[in-house]
């Protein structure tokens, strides 16, 4: 019986620790979506699988590969009407993935952008609200050029370049999703 109890406690511990690994990412995504779209929004989560063709054409246009073959898509509803989208993806900084969320209105214009998890010791300044706010209002026709329409950050060059391309990639992708 004691043996059972020990196993049970071990399981509880495992459940707790395995959940906490990712819980912070999910919680942060939820909070960011509600902050951007309002507390009364309903969130429907799905994974969007990239077709080979779509993946290839966007990667070529932007000059950056997708992190995975799947993009995490959040559809945001208010009173059964779709009001926007959130796309969660990753890009590599110098060596570790940067997890970021871009939120769009129903037409594909950026409303909010947020870094959900930054793991590198250097370049963390890309998480600042001020830097992310620069993407507000951009859409598929925008430049997305660091140093031009996006400010650089001295000491965070790799993250700035990588994230700017990542956000451009998601913006092109959403445009494709919406035009279907």
């Amino acid at each position, binding site marked *: *019986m004691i043996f*059972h109890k020990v*196993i*049970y406690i071990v*399981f*509880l511990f*495992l*459940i707790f620790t*395995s*959940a906490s*690994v*990712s*819980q912070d*990412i*999910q919680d942060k995504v939820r909070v960011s979506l509600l902050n951007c779209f309002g507390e009364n929004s309903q969130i429907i989560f799905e994974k969007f699988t990239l077709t080979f063709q779509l993946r290839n054409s966007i990667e070529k246009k932007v*000059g950056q590969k997708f*992190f995975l073959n799947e993009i995490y898509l959040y559809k945001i509803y208010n009173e059964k009407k779709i009001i926007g989208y959130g796309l969660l993806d*990753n890009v590599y900084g*110098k*060596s*570790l*993935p940067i*997890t970021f969320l871009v939120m769009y209105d129903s037409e594909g214009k950026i409303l909010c952008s947020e870094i959900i*998890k*930054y*793991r*590198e*010791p250097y370049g*963390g*300044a890309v*998480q*600042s609200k*001020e*830097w992310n706010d*620069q993407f507000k209002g951009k859409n598929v026709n925008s430049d997305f*050029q*660091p*140093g*031009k329409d996006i*400010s*650089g*950050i*001295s*000491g965070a*060059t790799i993250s700035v*370049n990588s994230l700017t391309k990542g956000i451009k990639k998601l913006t092109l992708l959403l445009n494709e999703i919406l035009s279907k």
Partner: protein
Amino acid sequence: MKLKLTIALVILFTQFIHSQDFNFFEPKVTIGGYGELHYNNEKIGDAPSNAIWDFHRFVLFFGYSWSEKWSFKSEVEFEHNFVKNGQGELALEQAYVNYHHSDEFGFNIGVILPSIGLINEYHEPPLFFGTERPVYHNLIIPTTWFGSGASVYGNVKGFDYRVMIFETLNSDKFSLSQGIRGGRMKGYKTDASRLLYSIRLDYLNIPGLKIGGSFSFNNAKGDSTQVDVTIAEIHAKYTANNITAVFEFGNISYNNGELKASRGYYFDLGYNVASFFDLNTKITPFIRYSDINTAAETISGGEKEKRYHFTEWMIGLDVKPIDNVVFKVDYSEQTRKLDDRKSKFINFGVGYMF
């Protein structure tokens, strides 16, 4: 009990699948590097001009991330393409274990780079104007400055800090012509009885701007001298709206010996003119002005304080077809204060990073 266990198992299994979905980290090796090939043509005073080709630096970066918090990073540098009889140089410029607890706090220990000035930590060729690094970063802040040490770092509300203890300088090697440059021990069997203490603070929450400074103290010692050194510097860099502007000022004080202070500053101003034509290549003409005096204050004064004092104007062009490749060309003229002797330099080169 069995039922409880089954439920726990099911929860664990679903949690596991679910958490894997959102756990994007994987242990991973990172390889990177940078390099630069230079053409240097110099004409010092009335002497005939002299031109060379130099593959100045070839650097490989290796890193490994065991977890999101623990990683190892290293940089091996090979200078001037060849090592023999004191020519060329092979050096381990970085090799440290890093613990990244959170944005607010992390630490590293090993062979590290002091956070002094804008370029020492971020010295890849696409990140600065001019074929060679600014002369300020040769004579006032001697880059690349590396050695054994440990630091604590983090970012709190836009303030980026780093506090570090670092190996001592060798005061026997300080000089009127090069300040502290010769005193760097480069991680080689450094006297452990004394340390350099350094603190750096930057503010980063204005898009495009980095502004800050650092202060360092070292009770440096050699075989025959002992000198307390303080290094104070401020720096700012703005990159936005096609403008790149840089300013740095540094002062080094010495409490013992002929040399009392080294001092210098420079500023850069560049504008990406390709933006007028909507090109993706960045074409940035720039100007730089430097004022450098490695012997700004001496005990004897007079000529000694003028001999190593010079100003420099530089004009140049920085072309980046992509962000990680740069072609550079520049012309500069130095004027020595002592006798108005003029030296002229023409440099061009190509640099890359990945």
